[in-house]
């Protein structure tokens, strides 16, 4: 990285969110460069999920800003933020169960109706699910559901992709497929923010890790540096 | 200008007397919601059944409606517990809309059957009438009696919920059914008990209503909507909240009825219900959802 690195594509500035008396996210500032894969890690309850929801617009922050390409987008609503170019998956996949895999993509695509189907099929092919296009989401295996949800995010070609525990409960073959696709997309200029508890995979995938604990940012750096950081070790293994 | 003050006092007193009855009715609705996340749209029909118990007993034996409480409370408790056990329990973990549709269907079944059996005729129970003056405020005797009984029953239910082992089991079920189950609480029975008590409270409210208003098969709808407005106002699932909400609603209704007509007062309540829903669209559950 040079001294004059380009402005981050996605940034949070002092973002804070409280639930009742609990501060779930406490003044977190992170800047993420385009075309990178960043891991967001931390113990359970550290605020990762809340930060995802704040960035994707599901909930507004109590204070602080969320910037996409330098423009403040907090409080705009999830639908608009998605349209501006941030897509996310969920920890427990949230497909529309009574729709086929293909329909799940067609439902959300913003391609014109005439080509919606073709666009959806292309994306399903990209994640290797062509054969399951007509299967109902409720009948898919856990790993397949995660892949369809990933595809559903990709169908509108977002610049920033948030993956919430993409590897939880996924078999090794599927893990590999997800990792390959993330690398493909990163090379094509996409930006990723990924949470997971599977450190082996996070270390392999990410060029940078940010660590949350009790809603606060406690470390930010290369995987090697973060792994050696005493504060991180304390957060994971301390009382 | 003493008359303005007297009028205001009159409205507040009438409203509070009404509110006591609403609290009794809404207490059950909020209890069922709190324990199993079900909005029981048949709650008004339970009130209607309680009113008919009093009417029929009075017609047959001339029984005092206050004594009829000794019948309506256990009868409605059983009706509620059985309904919970065999019907509502099947949808407790389903989305809220499923149970909403189910209880809506149940309310139609009860109303329709009541129409077939008891006809659409209006009935009433001539019981104590009249009133007395307290300064410039006149107080209706039957309403005061209904208010007093309502408060006693609501208070008894509250004590049961907070002080007894079964009450605590119910509240544990309300907080987290899985944990309650793991702690050895029979959650099916806790839910049956909750629904039974809620029905008994609604039935008692109905018995009290029988000597205040006309009794007819479709009387439940308006009461259910008011009870719902009360618990939205007081916070869904909160028993003390229901008491406060009921008092507010009672005073608003009495005020609107004084300023216009009873009919418009009804409309005001419904608009208030919608307005309250809108002011706190997500905040209905007390705090913001996590």
């Amino acid at each position, binding site marked *: 990285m040079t001294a004059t690195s380009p402005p981050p594509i996605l940034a949070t500035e002092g973002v804070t969110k409280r639930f009742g008396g609990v501060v779930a996210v406490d003044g977190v500032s992170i800047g993420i460069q385009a075309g990178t894969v960043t891991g967001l890690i931390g113990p359970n309850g550290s605020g990762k999920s809340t930060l995802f929801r704040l960035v994707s617009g599901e909930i507004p922050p109590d204070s602080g800003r969320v910037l996409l390409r330098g423009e403040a987008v907090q409080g705009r609503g999830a639908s608009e933020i998605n349209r501006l170019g941030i897509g996310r998956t969920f920890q427990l996949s949230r497909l529309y169960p009574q*729709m086929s895999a293909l329909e799940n993509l067609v439902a*959300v695509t913003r391609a014109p109706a005439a080509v919606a189907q073709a666009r959806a099929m292309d994306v399903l092919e990209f994640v290797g699910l062509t054969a399951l296009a007509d299967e109902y989401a409720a009948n898919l295996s856990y790993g397949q559901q995660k892949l369809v949800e990933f595809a559903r995010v990709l169908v509108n070609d977002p610049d920033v992709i948030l993956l919430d525990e993409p590897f939880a409960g996924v078999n090794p073959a599927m893990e590999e497929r997800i990792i390959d696709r993330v690398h493909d997309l990163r090379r094509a200029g996409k930006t990723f923010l990924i949470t997971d508890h599977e450190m082996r995979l996070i270390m392999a995938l990410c060029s940078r890790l940010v660590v949350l604990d009790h809603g606060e940012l406690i470390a930010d750096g290369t995987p090697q540096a973060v792994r050696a950081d005493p504060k991180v070790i304390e957060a994971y293994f301390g009382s | 200008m003493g008359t303005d003050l007297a009028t205001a006092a009159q409205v507040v007193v009438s409203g509070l007397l009404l509110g006591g009855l609403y609290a009794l009715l809404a207490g059950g609705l909020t209890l069922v919601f709190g324990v199993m996340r079900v909005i029981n749209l048949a709650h008004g029909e339970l009130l209607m059944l309680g009113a008919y118990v009093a009417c029929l007993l009075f017609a047959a034996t001339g029984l005092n409606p206050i004594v009829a409480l000794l019948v309506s409370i256990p009868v409605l408790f059983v009706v509620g517990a059985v309904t919970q056990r065999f019907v509502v329990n099947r949808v407790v973990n389903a*989305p809220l809309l*499923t149970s909403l549709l189910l209880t809506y269907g149940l309310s*139609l079944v009860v109303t329709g059957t009541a129409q077939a059996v008891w006809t659409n005729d209006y009935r009433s129970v001539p019981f104590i009438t009249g009133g007395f003056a307290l300064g410039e405020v006149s107080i209706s005797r039957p309403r005061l009696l209904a208010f007093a009984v309502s408060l006693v029953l609501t208070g008894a239910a509250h004590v049961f919920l907070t002080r007894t082992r079964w009450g605590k089991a119910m509240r544990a079920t309300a907080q987290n059914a899985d944990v309650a189950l793991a702690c050895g609480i029979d959650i099916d029975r806790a839910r049956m008990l909750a629904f039974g008590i809620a029905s008994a409270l609604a039935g008692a409210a109905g018995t009290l209503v029988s000597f205040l208003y006309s009794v007819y098969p479709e009387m439940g709808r308006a009461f259910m909507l008011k009870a719902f407005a009360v618990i939205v106002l007081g916070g869904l699932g909160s028993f003390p909240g229901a008491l406060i909400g009921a008092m507010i609603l009672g005073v608003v209704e009495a005020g609107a009825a004084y300023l216009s007509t009873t009919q418009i007062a009804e*409309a005001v309540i*419904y608009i208030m219900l919608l307005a309250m829903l809108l002011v706190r669209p997500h905040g209905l559950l007390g705090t913001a959802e996590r």
Partner: protein
Amino acid sequence: MVAASVTGLAARRLTSGYTAAMVLLGVGVSLLPLMVSNYILTFVLQALMACALAGSWNLISGFTGYVSFGHAAFFGLGAYAAGIAIAKAAVPAPVAIASAAIVAGCAGLCLGYPALRLRGPYFAVGMLGVAEALRVGITVAEPVTGGGRGLVMPPQDVLLPAYFSMLALVVLIVAITRAVATRPVGLRLLAIREDEVAAEVTGIQTTRLKLVAFATSATLAGVAGGIYAWHMSYIDPTTVFAGSLTVRAIAMTMLGGQGTVFGPVIGSVVLSVIGEVTWARFPFLHNAVSGALIVVIVLFIPRGVTGVLQDRGVLPRSRTL
């Protein structure tokens, strides 16, 4: 995999056969006036009206899962808009029905805008309150509406034109539903029903879609009310704002299958016939039967007849059904 799913050529044949059967039903109903008595015609007109209410309810509630317990409000508003136009301004029927559409549609927009911000269950109860408030409002506005005694229009025999108008409305509703169901917009509406948060996060403009669906639904229900007022030449608040109108629309749609094209048609045919049979003998059990049916459907066949047939492999899983 689904055990017995119908696929390929067989599915296409079944789908077109099913659609053809529905078209035949429509043709049969339109030829009926040549063959039967006015008594039967009046019964079929009522069934068509029920079908229009069920079909319009399905557009918002069946697709998005926003169950409206106040659908009768729009029927009632439409009936009063047309009724007042006929009684006070003596306008021709098409103008009266157009004003019904406009009033109900505008009410749908104005009420939907705030009400659709409520999550499903609160929306349902809120709409119940709205319908009651409107009924009271119409009753109170006695100088214009005639109040509780009702509104009397000059009597005229319009059975046949009313019949064909209602039939045209039903065909229009089915056509709209089919157009919606077979395009991505139908899937977007279903996505709201399946998981509204996920729909938002995937960029679906849920608020706008719900509002358009709701206003369309209200407009169509209002037209049904307008035709009813024109046909009956007498309306009163208790009849046109009756909760039972909403109840039957819900029961019919749920029976046939929510969020399907022909579900409301199937449901209204079945329930109208059952209703006609039970109505004469047990007038008050009519509502109870609808209620019992809702209970049974919720407990045992939540996806309705269409869903059951699709799960059993009798019908293909096509969105055009």
